[in-house]
């Protein structure tokens, strides 16, 4: 495929250039630049409201940038026709924050769903492939359960099985450890590492969990209020002398300097009769 040769030439699977985006009139992302190289695990970190989920949605081509550009496998998704975009998306797998399993389908049907839609394999092959992926995520034997019958960790693993069923070359995780206890979340980290080694896949993880980020990341991007605070390897981020990075790493809340006049102004703003 043409896409393949371009991506190997350029090495970067995702290329985000000067991305700017708004929610209403509020600026969510401001001049974000990021290149994700083939085969690496890129962790995107930041507190809530830092714009990391929005950045993820852009990389999934679910949102359109207000300015700047995104290239996936060397192609700009906003300039692709629907079939071309579908072709690119079949090379991507996504594990959503709450799994996003189809509630009306059981675990096996969920995992088999992309195969049923995109391939013409016969029923037995599809079921075997689905079960193979369930084996990979240690969910063998749970094929017939409905998503509502699964625990939080099992939902995430089932979602992961569905994300990898088409053997993607690019895998996204949205908050993989959110809502999981530390042991299960550590298991999931191991699974992510194992997948990268076994499938040679490029992985982008969005998380706010420091331990998890340091455990799995090759490089870390820290977002703060829509801007890139730092982009570097785990050691570079740890040894950064940027105050805001250190605050984030040490879980210190931001020092807020209060200006009395501004404070009064905020409280009485748009009140009548003042």
């Amino acid at each position: 495929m043409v896409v393949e040769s371009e991506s190997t030439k350029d090495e970067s699977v995702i290329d985000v250039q000067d991305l700017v985006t708004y929610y209403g009139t509020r600026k969510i992302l401001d001049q974000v630049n990021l290149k994700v190289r083939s085969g690496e695990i890129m962790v995107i970190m930041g507190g809530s409201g830092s714009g990391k989920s929005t950045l993820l949605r852009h990389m999934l081509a679910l949102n359109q940038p207000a300015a700047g550009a995104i290239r996936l496998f060397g192609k700009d998704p906003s300039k692709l026709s629907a079939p071309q975009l579908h072709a690119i998306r079949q090379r991507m797998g996504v594990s959503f924050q709450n799994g996003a399993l189809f509630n009306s389908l059981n675990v096996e049907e969920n995992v088999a769903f992309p195969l049923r839609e995109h391939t013409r394999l016969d029923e037995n092959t599809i079921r075997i492939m689905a079960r193979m992926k369930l084996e990979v995520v240690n969910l063998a034997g749970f094929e017939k359960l409905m998503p509502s019958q699964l625990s939080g960790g099992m939902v995430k693993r089932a979602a992961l099985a569905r994300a990898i069923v088409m053997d993607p070359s690019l895998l996204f995780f949205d908050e993989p450890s959110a809502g999981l206890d530390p042991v299960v979340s550590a298991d999931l980290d191991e699974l992510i590492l194992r997948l990268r080694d076994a499938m040679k896949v490029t992985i982008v993880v969005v998380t706010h969990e420091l331990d998890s980020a340091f455990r799995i990341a090759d490089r870390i991007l820290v977002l703060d209020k829509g801007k890139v605070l730092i982009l570097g390897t785990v050691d570079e981020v740890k040894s950064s002398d940027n105050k805001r990075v250190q605050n984030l790493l040490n879980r210190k809340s931001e020092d807020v300097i209060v200006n009395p006049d501004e404070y009064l102004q905020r409280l009485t703003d748009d009140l009548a009769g003042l």
Partner: protein
Amino acid sequence: MNTRKFIERIGEKTIDAIEEVGYHFSLLVESFYWLLVGPFVKQPVRLRNIFSEMMKIGVLAIPVVILLSFSNGVMMAIQGIVTLQEFDAESQVVPGIAYSVTREFGVLITAIVVAGRSGSAIAARIGSMQMSQEIDALRVMGIEPVRHLVAPIIFSMLVMMPILTIMADSAALIGGGLYTGIVLKLSLGTFIDRCFDVLVVYDVMQGLYKSLIFGVLIALVACSNGFSVSGGAEGLGKATTRSVVISIAMIVMADMIFTYFLSR
């Protein structure tokens, strides 16, 4: 100040409404695109989805549609006979029921039942899929949500609404016939015969045309409300209610407009 705000509000609402109509139209066009072109670009609308929608929208609605239409037929017979007695024209109740059922009430009751049953269910289902990111999941898998979710619903509506309407017409005529038979000592056979004497194909078709329009309206309103869900459980409840209220309102108004053009 207040007048200005009021006028601004009217402007905003108007723009919203136009936007919504535009969105409905784009959903409709996209659905037909997938139904007609999908199979040739390897993105067919799945028969499995269509059958499951037909089951939910059509087959499961049969009992309540028949029950309500039957009651409606009886009711019209009662009112008709009472009213016509004043002119000593009770026997004219047969064409009265036959016309109004086939042209109006059969399809209207069907549409209201389907809007209440399936419209709310569709809005709730798509809305909860939107909330749990299942719609996003479909998109990133390279599966168009419109093809996967909306097109089967539109297609099922187009097939099931006329069928339900014919059932409703029959149930109402039988209901009316039974009551008339008891009161006017007219056998059901005679009643049905006289119905066929006065009815022409056009009367029945008028109801069926409307049923197609109403079915598409219900589907579009329900789907668009489902897709627009935001803000958690409260938003979901709002979207569900809104889809039923709006589709019933649109059905009644569309009915009025169509009747004006078709019946004169």
